[in-house]
Every structure is written in C-alpha cells, then in structure tokens.
C-alpha cells in the first residue's frame, strides 16, 4: 500500500546528513544565530545578571544580594500558588486546545462543499488583537450587564459572577486562552492534514475502516510530528503569551489564598518587573521560568522526538 520511498524510516535526525561541508551549514545558520545572539541572548544575559541584585529600574539602584531573590521566591506561598495555577492552566489549555483544533481542522478538511469558507471562518477571529479580544470577553461576561448573563438569566435564571468567583474566573481565562489559540493550531493542523498521503487514507477507507478508525489508526499517527510541534509551541505560549489576556480580562484576580486566582507566572513577572518595578525579583523569576522551560523542552525532546513518526 505504501510507496517504498516513504517506508524508509529515519527517526534520528542525525542520520539524515546528505550534503557535505562543515562550513556551509554554519553559513546557513549564521543569520539566525547572529540575530538571536545579539537580540536575545546578549540582553538575556544582562537581564539574568540582575537576578542576583536587588534592583529597581526606575530608581537605577542595584545591590548584590546573591541568591536571596531566588530563596525569597521559592519560599513565598504566593509564588508557589502562582506556579501551581500556571501548571493547571497550561495543562488545560494545551490539551483541550489541541483536541478541539484537531477535531475542527479534521472536519474542515473533509471533502465537503464550502470547505474553503469553513476554513477561513475558523481562523478569522485570530486577526483580533489580544487587547481587543480581552476587552470583548470582559464586556460579554460583565455579571450585571454582560450579554452572557443576560442570556443565562433569561433562560435559567442564573447570573454567575464570572470575574470574582475564583473557579469561574480561572475557567473563563482558560477558555479565553483556548479560544485565542485555536486558530493558530487549526492553521497548522489544516496544513498538515493536507500533507497526509491521500492514497493511504483512501486505501484505509476502501479496506472498510470506519471514520473513527481512519482518524485514530491512520491519520493521527501521521500527524504526530505536527502535534509534537504544537504541544511544544502551545506550552510556550500558555506560559508566556497569556498575560495580555489576563491583564485585560481579570487583572490576575480574584485574590484568593495568597495570590490572584488567574495570576500566572508570566503575569506575576510582568507585574513585578513593569508595574511594581522590582527589576531584580523579576529577573529571578525570568531565570526560574527559563530553567523550568528548558527542562520541559529537554524532557519533551528526549521522550517525544523518539516517538514522533517521521516519514510515515
């Protein structure tokens, strides 16, 4: 059924070397590495250096404190609560986000009339800027005059207080983040589903496999590379890009326990660094986040990339 060319199994990237030359790959990499070195790593080193200082960018003060910023953070119940919340938030947005995106992309890839229109309409909301998206959710979920409570009130006579009930606010921000990331995931799934070898799919269907079987047994394994990629980018974006949305929708609140229920690591960092101007503490948080994510990445590549199904 499969063409010989595709059966070739090359799981290890290292074995792929086709072209020779030791200088040439560096020439190709140079532009990217140069830009990253100058505009990411150089400023990063300067920023992370501040993690060892009690510093305030507005005052221009810097005093060496060694590891004090780190011990303070790790011992702070507020920071631990924020870390736990971030973990749950990331887990939920990544799994639910990817499942919904995959389902929708799969449906929109069926050979049906108007498929092109469906695909476009699915990704259109992505054009809304994060600030506006957050604002719209805020209007919709205003407990007294928001559209959502108006409908819920009329239908079921309930008017939940979305923004100051900790569990509801957490759920709402999670949902908003999934919604905001949906188009991103759908775009890549759509592109990858088009990459699936049509003959294999057809063959499976002719062999009498049911739709669900085709999806889970044939399509899904072939989509592991893109799923792996998306899990990675979604984890990153759940960790780093959530702050515009949180800032506008809940301002990290409501305050419960020792911290705001929707305050996540990056929002805490943003607050400390750029609202309260605690530059040293923010740098320490950046360093901790970097270490955490570097570890996740390492794990993911160690475990994940071996299982990724390349070249079918």
């Amino acid at each position, binding site marked *: 059924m499969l063409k010989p060319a595709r059966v070739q199994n090359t799981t290890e990237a290292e074995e792929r070397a086709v072209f020779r030359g030791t200088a*040439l790959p560096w020439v190709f990499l140079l532009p990217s590495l140069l830009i990253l070195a100058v505009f990411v790593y150089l400023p990063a080193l300067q920023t992370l250096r501040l993690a060892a200082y009690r510093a305030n*960018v507005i005052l221009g003060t810097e005093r060496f404190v060694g590891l004090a910023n780190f011990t303070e953070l790790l011992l702070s119940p507020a920071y631990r609560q924020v870390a736990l919340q971030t973990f749950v938030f990331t887990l939920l947005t990544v799994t639910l986000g990817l499942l919904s995106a995959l389902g929708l992309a799969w449906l929109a890839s069926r050979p049906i009339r108007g498929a092109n229109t469906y695909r476009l309409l699915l990704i259109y909301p992505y054009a809304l800027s994060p600030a506006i998206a957050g604002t719209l959710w805020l209007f919709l979920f205003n407990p007294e005059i928001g*559209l959502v409570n108006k409908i819920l009130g009329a239908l079921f006579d309930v008017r939940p207080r979305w923004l100051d009930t900790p569990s509801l606010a957490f759920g709402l921000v999670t949902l908003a983040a999934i919604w905001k990331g949906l188009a991103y995931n759908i775009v890549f799934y759509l592109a990858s589903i088009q990459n699936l070898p049509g003959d294999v799919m057809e063959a499976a269907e002719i062999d009498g496999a*049911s739709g669900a079987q085709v999806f889970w047994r044939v399509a899904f394994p072939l989509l592991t590379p893109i799923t792996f990629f998306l899990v990675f980018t979604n984890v990153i974006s759940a960790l780093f890009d959530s702050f515009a949305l949180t800032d506008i929708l809940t301002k990290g609140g409501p305050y419960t326990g020792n911290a705001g229920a929707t305050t996540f690591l990056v929002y805490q960092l943003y607050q400390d660094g750029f609202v309260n101007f605690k530059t040293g503490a923010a740098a320490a948080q*950046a360093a901790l986040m970097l270490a955490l994510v570097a570890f996740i990445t390492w794990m993911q590549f160690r475990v994940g990339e071996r299982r990724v199904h390349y070249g079918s």
Partner: protein
Amino acid sequence: MAREVRGSVPALPTVGAGRGKSRHGRVWVTHLALIVAILIISAPLLFALIKSTQISSDVLSPKLIPGGAFFDNLSGVWVDAKLGRYMFNSTVLAVSVTVGKTVLSLLAALAFVYFRFPLKGLAFTLVLLSLMLPTEVLIIALFDLVSQDLKWADTYAAIIVPFLASATGTFLFRQHFMNIPTSLADAARIDGCGPLLYLTRILIPMSWNTIGALAVIQFVYAWDQYIWPLVILQNDDKQVVQVGLRRLIEVGGQTDWGAVMAGAIVTMIPPLIVFTALQKQFSRGFALTEDK
C-alpha cells in the same frame, strides 16, 4: 466551547459498505458541527462588529441591535487616531518580519536536516530556547542595546531586525523537511545539485502549505507587536497599529468604546486579507503526492 468540539469528533465519517444514505447523513452532521463551532468561535467577532455600529454608551450594554454610528465611530478613529498611518507602518513591519523569518528559518532548517556538523545539537537548542525569552522580559537591556549601541531608535530597523530569526519557523521547517524522503535529496546530490538549488527547486515547492501556515502566524505575531514599538519609537511617524488601538482604549478614563470597536474592526482588515490570500496555500495538498 471545548465540549461542543469534542462532542463532534465521534460524529466523524462512518464509512460503511453502503455509500448512499449514510454518506449523506454524515456530510450533514459535518456541516452542522462546523457551523455550530464557527458560530461559537466567532461570537466575540460578531459581537465586536455589532458594537462598532453603536454609539459609545451602548457598547457595554447587552444590546445587540446594530446602530447607525459605524461611520461616525470610524471617521473619529481614522482621522484623529491616525490609524491609516499606523496601519501602513504595521504592514511594513509585518511583511518584512514574515518574509525575513521565512527565509532565515528555511536556511536554518536546511542546515539542521541535511548536514552533519559538530555542535548541531547545541545550535538547535539555542534556537529553540530563544522562544522562552520574550521581548517583554528583555526589554530594558534590549532598549539600551538598540538605542545606545546601535543607534537605531526611531528607525524601522529597530522594530524589524530583532525579530527576524524564528525558532518556531526553524522547528517547523525542520520537521517538515524530515518528512520528505531522503531519497529525493540523494538523487539531487548525485545529479550535482547543491543545497541551495535543492532548497529553491525541490524543498520550497514542496513546502508551500507549511510556508503559508507559518506566514499567517508570523504576520499576526508582527501585527500584534505593542510594547517594544511603543518604547523604542519616539517619533510618532513610525508608530504601529497596536499602539494606535491602545491609544483609543487607554485614554486615561472615559474610553470611547464605539470608536475602539470601529478601530478594532478596521485594523483586522490587513490580517484578514493575508489569511484569505494564504488560505489556498496552506490547505493545498502536499506537492509530492501530486507529482508522483
């Protein structure tokens, strides 16, 4: 939202022996599921569209009847908030960043997939880790660098060059290339085709859908830039569209929400054009299957 979606997955094609009725039935279900999903997903968008036609004091109310104030709202933002100028600047930024990121990450992926060289793992890790250092975190050091050492403040370079490398793009193209049979590259090499020729003649034509998908994402990423341009550009002539939008929202109290909604709708147009133009790209079949 997620519930609807998951509910719709089991409703996927059920190919039986009979093709007549069951196929019709399942197409109907697919249409329904997509329409429901699209309605839910685009509800905030539709809401914004309606609100952009209402007068400001109605925007926060649950009223859903379109008003007649769209052009009033729009003329306000277009003239006073200089959105036209900002949108031009953002288009320059977004197109440059998108093209630059695509080219640079294609080259980087070429190196990672088709060459064996020392420190490859380290180089790849460095590219990937850059994702975890968003500009917001680096802003102070980056500001000193760009403004003092490079003297780029107030130039387009300041908002474009730092964003030209793409970890996402490199990672994605690397995966995509690994999916392309090595035999092709072997054949090309034997025919005396160098890596660059192989990239332009074979890999790129086989990657249009991935390039298209990535371009959509990169364009929006660049279009959504806010804090960095705000800080680095002192001259208003080169300012970007998100700063223009924030100007409407963060006015220091008394936001004119009708104008904000009209502004939001107008500033969506360039990304929407890009989506529509590229949609054919990323939902096009894999060139390989067509060729063979």
